[in-house]
């Protein structure tokens, strides 16, 4: 009986390791600075995490499907610049769908290369990181892109608006996370993503169209990126060409922190959301403690490894790896 309960505890730990880690950090930070858990601060952290978070939702699909996406940061810059530019030229009503269409084309291109041509996703998306950056610079001529009439546009609602007292970006993040969480966990498409990432050959042998599934993952990811770009553009109504630069690693870190294996086949949307929040709150918590940015680097290092370690240690029931 004793072993049973021990196993049950182990099981709970295994499933919720990352949540427990999250709780520990939150408590520690709150002790360090009571303002940390104030409504304002929490809302502000979640709001600024929402953009990275929305991107991470899409990348979760890509990673579970057994691939990587390093191009999301650069693609987000592209979406942001494009929608800002089009806002003034054709108006927000047309600008938003036009920007989505263009971003989805980029996603489709990557999906075609990785899914149908079976090219290595790391290199393809690394190549696209550079290529899309070039595209953005060509599009904007390298200039900052700003909306002329910042006060008079309803476009700001996606980044700055509030509904029911909650900032719209947070609501969008929650809604999208819930929707994609259900898609991944409950629909046939979600099941196929797990199958393709878990064992692509066996999935093909089970009649799953592997190429199409991978393609759709990238398409979905680019849709999330476009949403993030919309939120970003709307938040500041103007942008640099480099606004998304470097976000790809943050996104990947969040997805991994959420326990998705880079080999594919595992991970959940819920855990990715936790991963996003952990990263957001760490950064904010350390800022509030007044630590130098480089201390943040070091602490983030330690926390990433500790969190993932805790998670897998709980799963295997042993702290140290049994590897000889």
């Amino acid at each position, binding site marked *: 009986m004793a072993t049973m309960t021990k196993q049950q505890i182990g099981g709970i730990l295994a499933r919720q390791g990352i949540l427990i880690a999250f709780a520990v950090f939150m408590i520690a930070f709150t002790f360090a600075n009571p303002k940390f858990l104030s409504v304002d601060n929490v809302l502000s952290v979640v709001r600024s995490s929402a953009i990275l978070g929305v991107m991470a939702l899409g990348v979760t699909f890509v990673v579970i499907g057994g691939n990587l996406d390093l191009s999301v940061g650069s693609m987000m810059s592209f979406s942001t610049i494009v929608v800002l530019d089009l806002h003034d030229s054709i108006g927000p009503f047309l600008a938003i769908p036009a920007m989505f269409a263009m971003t989805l084309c980029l996603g489709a291109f990557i999906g075609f290369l990785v899914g149908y041509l079976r090219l290595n996703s790391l290199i393809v998306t690394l190549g696209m990181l550079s290529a899309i950056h070039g595209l953005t610079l060509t599009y904007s001529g*390298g200039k900052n892109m700003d909306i002329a009439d910042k006060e008079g546009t309803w476009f700001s609602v996606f980044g700055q608006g509030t509904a029911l007292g909650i900032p719209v970006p947070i609501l969008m993040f929650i809604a999208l996370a819930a929707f994609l969480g259900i898609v991944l966990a409950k629909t046939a498409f979600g099941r196929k993503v797990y199958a393709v990432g878990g064992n692509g050959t066996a999935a093909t042998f089970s009649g799953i169209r592997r190429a199409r599934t991978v393609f759709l993952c990238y398409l979905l990811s680019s849709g999330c990126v476009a949403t993030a770009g919309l939120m970003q553009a709307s938040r500041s109504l103007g942008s640099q060409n480099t*606004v998304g630069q470097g976000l790809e690693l943050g996104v990947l870190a969040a997805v991994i922190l959420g326990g998705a294996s880079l080999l594919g086949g595992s991970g959940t949307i819920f855990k990715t959301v936790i991963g996003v929040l952990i990263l957001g709150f760490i950064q904010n918590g350390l800022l509030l403690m007044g630590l130098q940015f480089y201390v943040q680097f070091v602490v983030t290092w330690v926390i990433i490894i500790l969190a993932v370690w805790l998670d897998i240690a709980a799963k295997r029931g042993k702290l140290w790896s049994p590897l000889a």
Partner: protein
Amino acid sequence: ETMKIGITQNNVGVDSYQTTYEKAFIAAAAANADVEAVVLDAGGDVARQIAQVEDLIQQGVDAIIIWPTNGEAVIPAVRKAHQAGIPVIVTNSNIAEAGFDFVKSFSGPDNVTQGARSAEIMCEKFTAMGVENEAKVVHITGQPGYTTAIERAKGFEDRLPEVCPNVTVVDTQPGDWNREKSQQVMEAFLVKYDDIDGVYAGDDNMGVGALNAAKAAGREGIIFVGATNFAVGYEAMAAGDYWGSIYQSPVDDAEAALKTAIDVLGGKEVPFLNYFDTPKITQDNMGDYTKPVF
């Protein structure tokens, strides 16, 4: 006989200043029938920049303009050009003194002075408001490790206590030349400090990011001062949200560099330190300046 001039820039595309610089340089070179230019970008990577200098030497250009990624690391490469008989002109941010023997001239802004002037702008405004004895300032710096960021920060932090000894800088964090990053940093500052009177940002992109954060949080009465007046900054000044900045034109910067190179090749005497002026711009005098194009 055309002059072949090669330039290696620091990191085009990292912000619109550098991109506008590149475009202006190409335009100026094209406008001059005697000049052929090859324009390279080091992407912020010192190894790539050194390789580009070597390539330019190998291609046999007549003059090399360099916007150093690191003011000391490029010295041996610059020496090679010097030894190959190719004059070198440094642009935008200077190389270290050990390399002065190998370059003909420096042309660009004086970043330390810029930082100092930002401090003065801020102090003057505080004095006008009568808060010069209690004001608290937060400082958002550029990307850590970049010469421009370091020099501006130094100029500001050294000058502020001289002009406004009772103003305190309560916190400093980098905003990486990035509006979004700066906005996030400012959000945390706003939570952490109930009383912030001024924000100094290493450039207007970051300054406007901080301004956005303050607006979203509904915090009023904060004095924002930046540097490198971008179009966004100019507009925010026009709207009355943003107090002041430093007027610096990448077009002037690029044209000055090219002109210096042409003068050197033409055998003219050029001063070694060729600073172009970067005046203060505030809500009060902004009418004297046209809106920046970048």
